[in-house]
């Protein structure tokens, strides 16, 4: 009988330890796991959402109006070049040169695999190449290059071919064949934004926020 009295306390202690190990510990572990993984994820999601909202508000306020128009003019969302050709014709005439030939070759291949700024599928800019031939003297040609630089749509001159020729009156003038590139970029649609953001989970933030948003230069 004396032996029973001796083992009651250790028995209770062992039973208690077993209860704690098999009943209390799993509850605590489960909660702790939620607390350490799921809650930070959710808090992170909320933080990201708030940051996103603030960022959108800020950019929306900054980029509205003329700024947005300038950006769209410089890099339009469609490949239409009629207006550009008209502008080129205008500046050639302005510099009293003669436009003798113009051709445009579309090299666009839309790649929507680029990661967008807010996790949506982004669009890469597309390039359209062209050539045009003008005739005039070197001074006029230099002024033309200056005018091309100031066009509202971005036009990069890649190559200049120079030759001597004669005008209708028989005077020597320069013949310049210019190879140029202009660009366009498809617009990000509402659907792309929705898909991108909805696929962005707490474990897959998907946010590719540009480290520094470039500002549009005042002039190019």
């Amino acid at each position, binding site marked *: 009988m004396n032996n029973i009295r001796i083992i009651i306390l250790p028995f209770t202690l062992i039973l208690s330890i077993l209860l704690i190990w098999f009943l*209390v510990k799993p509850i605590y572990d489960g909660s702790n796991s939620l607390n350490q993984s799921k809650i930070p994820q959710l808090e992170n999601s909320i933080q990201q959402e708030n940051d996103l909202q603030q960022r959108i508000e800020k950019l929306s306020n900054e980029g509205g109006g003329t700024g947005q128009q300038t950006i769209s003019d410089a890099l339009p969302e469609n490949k239409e070049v009629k207006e550009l050709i008209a502008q080129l014709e205008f500046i050639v005439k302005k510099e009293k040169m003669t436009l003798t030939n113009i051709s445009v070759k579309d090299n666009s291949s839309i790649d929507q695999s680029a990661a967008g700024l807010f996790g949506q599928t982004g669009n890469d800019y597309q390039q359209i190449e062209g050539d045009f031939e003008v005739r005039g003297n070197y001074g006029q040609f230099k002024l033309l290059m200056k005018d091309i630089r100031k066009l509202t749509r971005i036009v990069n001159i890649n190559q200049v071919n120079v030759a001597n020729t004669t005008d209708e009156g028989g005077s020597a003038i320069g013949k310049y064949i210019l190879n140029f590139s202009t660009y366009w970029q498809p617009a990000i649609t509402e659907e792309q934004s929705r898909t991108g953001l909805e696929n962005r989970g707490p474990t897959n933030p998907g946010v590719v926020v540009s480290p520094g948003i*470039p500002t*549009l230069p005042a002039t190019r």
Partner: protein
Amino acid sequence: MDIRKGVVVSRTNLIDTKKEFSIPWKGVGVITFLTLALWAGAFAYDTTVRKKVVNLESNVNRIKQGRDYKKIAQVADMEDRLNSIDKILRQRVDWEELLRKIEENTLPEITYSNMETKVVSQNPQGMSPSGTTDAGEEKYQMILKGTAIGLSTLSKQIATFENSKDSNGKKFANEVIIQKIDMKKTDTGEVDKGGALDFTIQVNINPLSVKNDFKNKNE
């Protein structure tokens, strides 16, 4: 006497046996209390954590439902477009500056017939990791085709390009490579007596000297 003595001894034994069956209530109670307290604590902690998760999830859903996808698309598009413009402008050569530099550094005996420029980006993304532009990332190459009177004139021309520096000490050409030299021939196939030759040279331009410096242009 022996019998009585035995009875006494027997009674004494009975009393001792009753004492051995008493349970250590205090110890058992403390252990039980601690166990129950731990269980209750874990249960309360679990409930709190789960409530917090539910609250946060409902907050996330509420915020997500308030998204204006149209506005987000507009802003993202504008930002993407700005990044692209930045990349494109970094590919641009300032032709005004380039022509000025070529004029300054060309000998009178040289005539050009073709100029081709190429910007070779060393960073495929076209953007530095910090999102800032860095003039050292691109290589500007110019292929010049033309005519010179004599080989010595051409070598002088190359030396002129290589040694040219602007007022700020910036070199115009980092390197000049001869790609092709052809002695000009007459209609009958003879070498031109005047020593005229056609050449093609590749000039690796210092990007800093002709880079499209839109920040400093006020036109």
